[in-house]
């Protein structure tokens, strides 16, 4: 019994010893490993947080070209307003919000075949100091957030002297347009995709169509690491149009069609040509190109010039190059409406590439959208003027690098109906010659054209020559006075939309607004933004003479009271939008009362905190 016990206790003791020894050894080992690992990765990562250094390019802004209030340039640098919210001058504000501008007759028809996933309306490109592999992008939105729909990164370093041969754009984040519940400030930090290159050029694309008022952005923060993240598990992303617009069903259709082609074309052979054309016409451009590769029959259909009567390449701005324009050339011989807006920047499309495309396909062009195309030169405009005699619509908005002389060629396009020259450097002589020759103009946008010396002369010329004018945008024209406005109102009796926002030299005391109301009975949209002199009698005159008024903006006048507004709302039954922000006589309570009384009208009252 006793030796048994001894044996057992000895055994137990040995077990204990062993366990304890092994335990300590394990611990030592573990701790050493931990020390080693902590030494190896001492600074786990060096993360850099930076604000935008410079604003490189943008499509539109609310502010004036030679000021810093409400301009896109405010997006560079540290935040000025955040975390407070409200309508502040120190932020970046885009030109439009909501659907008010799209409702207007001056807005062109949308292009068919635009991918459903393409929402962007405006963009801004920001350069940062240090190229990094971004780990987070934070946008400080200080008023009516929710407009951002896409964030992209570019492989090109805007500050480097030798640009690389291929410029790649990578989508870091994409989403649907949204609307925040409150207009309050927020920090928008979406989960972004990891990319395989370091970037210091970020592009934000926005869609403000769901917003109640202008969105305001204060600053953009980019966080990132200098070294490529060690986790190499992510796939090598490729820039692909299909990322932007991918629909599984159509791919299946394509695959199915491809499968059938080896046994003849099956039922497709029995379908009438027009029917297949109709089916194919619902595809987006990348799908069309993919389908063309599936079989000969479908290639014939997909490359039929009838499929390319209208073509918007705007959603594919990141990929469009001279080469792709060259490929499209043979298919676009019947093209009538072409949009190259936003495309071709940073050398992707050259002036010669564009010219040869227009020469080959431009003879039938009716509509040409070239917003923010910085590759345009005077030679391009000359080619357009010579090869597109039937051009009716031309959009050159924000082509702010186009030389003033280039605009002189537009006067040869005598069939022009719609001309957008927003934020361009057009000069007075060129504009006057355009107005002399293009007498069929119906829609003209001269917003923020800073090189025009005397808007009165322009307005008089419009009144004399362009009597069929239906919409006119003179946003922030610096010196229009009652003289020009009177001539305009007398001449262009068909005018329906008139934007006189920030034309501070118009004085209501001269009676110009009264006369405007009297002579333009068809007026549907009138913007008198920030004209401090608009008064009660102007509003009453509008109420009396313009029953069809739909949009009215009288922001920032202290001389309009609620009585005249009530009168206006009663007599203009079609009114949809009324902006009375910063009208000191109209307080929030009045706005609320009026809104309940006239629920069909969106009455806007912006605020600063």
């Amino acid at each position, binding site marked *: 019994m006793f030796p048994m016990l001894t044996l057992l206790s000895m055994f137990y003791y040995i077990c204990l010893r062993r366990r304890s020894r092994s335990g300590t050894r394990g611990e030592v080992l573990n701790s050493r490993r931990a020390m080693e690992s*902590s*030494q190896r*990765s*001492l*600074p*786990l*990562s*060096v*993360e*850099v*947080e*930076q*604000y*935008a*250094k410079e604003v490189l390019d943008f499509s539109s802004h609310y*502010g*004036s070209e030679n*000021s*810093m*209030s*409400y301009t896109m340039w405010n997006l560079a*640098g*540290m935040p*000025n307003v955040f975390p407070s919210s409200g*309508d502040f*001058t*120190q932020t970046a504000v885009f030109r439009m919000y909501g659907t008010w501008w799209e409702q207007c007759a001056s807005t062109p028809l949308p292009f068919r075949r635009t991918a459903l996933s393409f929402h962007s309306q405006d963009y801004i490109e920001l350069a*940062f*100091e*240090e190229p990094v592999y971004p780990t987070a992008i934070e946008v400080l939105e200080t008023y009516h957030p929710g407009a951002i729909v896409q964030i992209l990164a570019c492989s090109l370093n805007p500050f480097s002297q030798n640009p690389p041969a291929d410029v790649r754009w990578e989508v870091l984040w994409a989403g649907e347009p949204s609307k925040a519940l409150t207009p309050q400030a927020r920090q928008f930090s979406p989960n972004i995709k990891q990319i395989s290159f370091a970037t210091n050029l970020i592009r934000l694309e926005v869609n403000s169509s769901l917003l109640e008022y202008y969105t305001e952005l204060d600053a953009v923060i980019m966080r990132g690491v*200098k*070294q490529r993240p060690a986790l190499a598990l992510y796939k090598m992303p490729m820039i692909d149009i299909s990322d932007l617009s991918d629909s599984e069903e159509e791919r299946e259709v394509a695959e199915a069609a491809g499968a059938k082609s080896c046994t003849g074309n099956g039922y497709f052979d029995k379908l009438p040509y027009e029917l297949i054309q109709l089916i194919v016409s619902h595809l987006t451009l990348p799908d069309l190109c993919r389908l063309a590769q599936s079989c000969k029959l479908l290639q014939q259909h997909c490359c039929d010039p009838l499929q390319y009567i209208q073509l918007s390449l705007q959603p594919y701005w990141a990929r469009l190059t001279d080469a792709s324009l060259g490929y499209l050339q043979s298919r676009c011989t019947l093209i009538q409406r072409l949009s190259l807006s936003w495309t071709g920047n940073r050398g992707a499309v050259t002036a010669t590439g564009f010219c040869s495309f227009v020469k080959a396909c431009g003879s039938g062009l009716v509509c040409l959208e070239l917003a923010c195309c910085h590759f345009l030169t005077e030679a391009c405009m000359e080619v357009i003027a010579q090869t597109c005699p039937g051009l009716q619509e031309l959009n050159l908005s924000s082509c702010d690098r186009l030389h003033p002389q280039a605009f002189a060629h537009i006067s040869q396009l005598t069939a022009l109906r719609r001309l957008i020259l927003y934020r361009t450097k057009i000069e007075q002589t060129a504009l006057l010659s355009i107005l002399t020759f293009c007498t069929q103009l119906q829609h003209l946008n001269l917003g923020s054209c800073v090189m025009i010396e005397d808007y009165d002369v322009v307005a008089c010329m419009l009144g004399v020559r362009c009597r069929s004018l239906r919409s006119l945008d003179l946003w922030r024209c610096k010196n229009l006075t009652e003289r020009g406005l009177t001539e305009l109102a007398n001449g262009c009796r068909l005018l329906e939309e008139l934007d006189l926002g920030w034309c*501070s*030299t118009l*004085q*209501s*005391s001269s009676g110009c607004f009264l006369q405007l109301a009297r002579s333009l009975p068809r007026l549907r949209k009138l913007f008198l933004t*920030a004209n*401090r*002199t608009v*008064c009660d009698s102007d509003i009453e005159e509008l109420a009396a003479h313009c029953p069809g008024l739909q949009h009215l903006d009288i*922001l*920032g*006048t*202290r*001389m309009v009271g609620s009585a005249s507004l009530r009168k206006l709302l009663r007599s203009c039954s079609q009114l949809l939008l009324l902006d009375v*922000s*910063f009208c*000191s006589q109209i*307080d929030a309570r009045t706005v609320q009362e009026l809104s309940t009384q006239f629920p069909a009208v969106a009455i806007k009252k*912006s605020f*600063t*905190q």
Partner: protein
Amino acid sequence: MISVLSYGRLVARAVLGGLAQTDSRDYSLVTASCGFGKDFRKGILKKGMCYGDDACFIARHRSADVLVKLRLVMRAGHRPRCQGEPGPSPQASSGQSPCQAYATCLTHRENHPFTLRCSPGQNRAAGSTEGLWGQPSDLASWASHALYAEVLWNGRWLCSGPSSNEPMLPCELMGVADGVGGWRDYGVDPSQFSLTLMRTCERLVREGRFTACSPVGILTTSYYELLQNKVPLMGGGGVDTFGSSTACIVVLDRRSHRLHTANLGDSGFLVVRGGEVVHRSDEQQHYFNTPFQLSIPPPEAEGAVLRDRLKSLRGGGLGAFPELANHVEGPASGVPCCIRPSSRISETAVPEAADRSSFDVQLGDIILTATDGLFDNMPDYMILQELKKLKNSNYESIQQTARSIAEQAHELAYDPNYMSPFAQFACDNGLNVRGGKPDDITVLLSIVAEYTD
């Protein structure tokens, strides 16, 4: 040893400074402000730098914006190891914090001057910083580029600061603006305009949208920025910012030691050297008690009280004031015998009409920038007397002197029997008045000193 060295340096500098007229050192201004609003209901400092209807600003400009922040994320609980240098206590040797020392070591290695500075509060919070980081190589490459750095350790921001080379502050600015009180009769708060104007100036400086040698440009730009605001009012509360203001802006260019000034209206500045006024601003008045002023007039008053603003804009401002007799029927009319405390509203001058000057300053020069509340109540000799009491150039003594000047002017302003410069001037204009001129008083007092961190 160190004291001997520093003494030697001082001597050498004194000798060199005596020999060569120009020195390469950077100057800077030590500035203090003080003021009184004329009515006490507003309190002394309302919001920002604002005394009554007066407003002022003091700003320094960085040549490069602080845009890049560096963040070193360390594993929690890990203690940074000492590398090379012993550093038992952070502030032990030569007052350098470990981060600073560390950065200096980086600096030597990268041959690029760069300092990481610890702010004391943050450093104390971090407490257990014993020494320096381990592998600095990846940080070094950063440090050589970054303009601004913050180093995070255990989730705390340890140090931050601009690098010493690039963002040398090349100039310093200050300005005063005096809201014209006449607008109060229109139900307009005169301080809104002056305050907003000064704030906009400050923002322009912060964003670097100015050139040091053209303070008129700063004034012009910020004036036109005011016109660009959606809000016909600023600062909220439903108060309109119509109104007008005089303005005076002083810029010191650090490198060239030149003082550039712009002055519109009856605010002004003095440069005092060795007890004498060596340079001063010209007063700009249309006529008695009606200074030049920047304004945004309310629309209904346009034409009635003021001539068309555009006309004066087109007419080039200054030349466009031929007849003075018929142009102002402002709030001050009909009361010529008693002195109205506030200046009258006058025709709008364009900011380009401002009087401009440039002047070379020396070390020890005193620059006094003030609104008319001071100059109307205190003659030069009294100001100089007060300034004589100023012995050294540390902030406290300047603050004290500024305060005593402002207080004295404030007392004199309410003395009914005192023959103030304003009363004197009124007498010269055929008005029999005595006493001080109760007005808002703003005094910015600065001394030209050598630039130090």
